């Protein structure tokens, strides 16, 4: 079976700066893969390339065997890829539930006329979307349910906002979830919860997950496989233990001396 997501020989430059250079990356269905590397290594750029926000200069990106070249982001999402943003881009003035419901646009069909006349098909679909949103939000325990559904997103605490961002991504019914630093800015308790959550996303939710993370505890706790990037190039791949002790990885994070010492 071909991998769910496959990047081959992908290159991307901005002006004179080569951000991604000949990258080969794959994620099989049902896997949880972590993407690590120092800041500026190009990790978020990989996400942007996969989701169609940038177009690759060279190389191929394929999802479930199908090339995504030239497709606009909303079409790529409909194929089954959803993402969260490193800097959180929620629809702040919409309610929690509406945030998730909004993401359902791609797999719903009610037309403008049907909506304006409130035809039975449109009403039925609305109920389904609402139920789907409640389900996805229920994934996070008690934190985003009940009266929270109708609160505006800007009233949520930071950790809840991160959770909502993931719930929203789930709202588009993806097969592959791209999580960009899901545990950033969280305290140890929240981080632990996030680690569990990512595991549950795979087992209960059935998602395939590609995660960018800096917190090595999280990476250790969730990954089937770890890929390390530095300056747009893959420098290591394998299990967490293999990658964590790899000389190039240590050098990238801590410098040459640490690699030699260590």
């Amino acid at each position, binding site marked *: 079976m071909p991998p769910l997501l496959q990047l081959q020989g992908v290159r991307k430059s901005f002006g004179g700066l080569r951000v991604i250079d000949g990258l080969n990356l794959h994620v099989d269905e049902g896997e949880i893969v972590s993407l690590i590397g120092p800041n500026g290594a190009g990790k978020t750029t990989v996400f942007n390339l996969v989701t169609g*926000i940038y177009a690759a200069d060279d190389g191929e990106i394929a999802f479930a065997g199908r090339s995504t070249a030239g497709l606009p982001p*909303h079409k790529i999402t409909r194929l089954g890829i959803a993402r969260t943003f490193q800097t959180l881009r929620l629809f702040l003035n919409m309610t929690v539930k509406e945030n998730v*419901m909004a993401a*359902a646009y791609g797999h719903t069909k*009610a037309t403008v006329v049907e*909506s304006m006349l409130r035809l039975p098909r449109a009403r039925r679909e*609305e109920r389904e979307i609402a139920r789907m949103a409640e389900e996805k939000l229920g994934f996070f325990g008690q934190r985003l349910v009940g009266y929270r559904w109708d609160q505006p997103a800007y009233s949520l605490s930071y950790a809840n906002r991160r959770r909502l961002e993931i719930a929203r991504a789930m709202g588009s*019914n*993806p097969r592959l979830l791209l999580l960009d630093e899901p545990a950033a800015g969280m305290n140890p308790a929240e981080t632990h919860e996030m680690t569990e959550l990512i595991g549950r996303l795979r087992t209960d939710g059935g998602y395939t997950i590609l995660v960018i993370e800096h917190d090595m505890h999280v990476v250790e706790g969730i990954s089937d496989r770890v890929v390390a990037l530095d300056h747009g190039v893959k420098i290591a791949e394998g299990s967490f233990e293999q990658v964590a002790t790899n000389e190039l990885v240590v050098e990238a994070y801590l410098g040459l001396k640490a690699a030699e010492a260590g």
Partner: protein
Amino acid sequence: MDAGGTIPEPPAAPDERERPRVGVDEWVARVEERRETHRGLAGVAHRVLRFVPPPARLALFVAVAATLPLWMGRGDLFAYGIFTLLYVLLGLGLNVVVGYAGLLDLGHIAFFGFGAYLYALLSSEQYGIHWPATATVPLVVAATALLGLLLGIPSRRLLGDYLAIVTLFFGQAFVFFVNAANPTVAGKGLTGGPNGIADIDPLSFFGYELASRRQQFYFLLLAVALILTGLHFLSESRTGRAWRALREDPLAAEAMSIPVNRLKLLAFAFGAAIAGFTGCIFASVLTAVTAGNFGIPLLITIYAIVILGGVGSLTGVVIGAVVINMSFQFLAPENPQDNARLLFYSLIILLLVLTIRPLWKLAAVFGGVVVLGAVVERLVEALAPSWTGGVVVEGGRLAGAVGHWVIIPTGHGRFANVAYVSLVAAVLLLTRLHGNARIVALVPTIYLAAVVWETSFVEQPAVARWILFGALLVSLMTVRPQGLLGTPRVEIV
């Protein structure tokens, strides 16, 4: 992909193990903020509105409006009833583009004008074409929607402010085209130049002509009710959500499977269609159109309506249109000046009552103003009679009282101008003072305002109207940028 199957029991409060802690639970922390935004008149309005669900609001509005023809004369019905509904429609059209999709369209009035002119061309003596409304209205709506689409296509690449610029110019180009260019088609100037097109047929459906004001009013009311309902349903649907998401963050929306470009085009086309429809009705009701109807002042009025009511809110648009049109008509130059005078003084009194808290301070200000006026007037009369020789414009009971209170000179042409400039300076200064200093400064400022009113505004009511409107816009925005009925938005800068 199923996630979890059953939905956990909704808790009575978040994180039941612990009580919400201020500073930790942001919703709790924002209680004060919510209380603030709900104080005062706007707060009362908010709370009332929340209790009355949209269908009830619509029913109430229609019921009240339907009684208008029963007690209003034809002239009043036209000015107050029909024009208000036209403003409502225009506001609704703009609301779709600006309020729902968040697109800054400064040329929206051009769609209105296009619809009006196209209808005029098809139903008037201009080229002798007299199609019935059953043919023209759908055609005009479709054509205007297409125009909206065409304007939308190139603007997809443009970010917010550039969109504003291009649409602004489009609007101006339309006015210039219609007014100055006026190309000759089939032997005549297409758009009639500055004179426009006259003798436009009233709407006629299947032979039934809407000739009387009453008929026109009821037709408009029906149209407004239907459009409001449709827009409300649309707003609550996936399209409405997608528009709101697009308004919040186009990039994130696109990443969440929303086809942003297509929705922008849809918003443009939709808003244009409504404006075009309104144009038809406008042309048929006024029976004449000129370029002057479609300029910047109208654009700003419609924006004011949308903003006053809180961008994106249908109820807000209706209320905004009612308030603004009612005020405009009340202050129209044709109406007796006593109306305007009454409104002016009442507004000042209202403002004072609403903003000055302890009752004794309020009384002090009132008393101070009255006394100051009387004293100054007597003094000036004694010292230099020519300075109070002027007559109050247009009689009436109020005018008589005012005449003995305000200084109105004769033959001192510069006085009015100096008074006006001093008033502007005084008002600006007022905003910089606080507490008791402000209360004290209020007294001479109010007297000065009355003087300015009686010496210049009352002589040039049309100009005064726009000055006050401009001042109102600035004050409203600086004090309450979200509009009277809007909720404060969090913006990603």
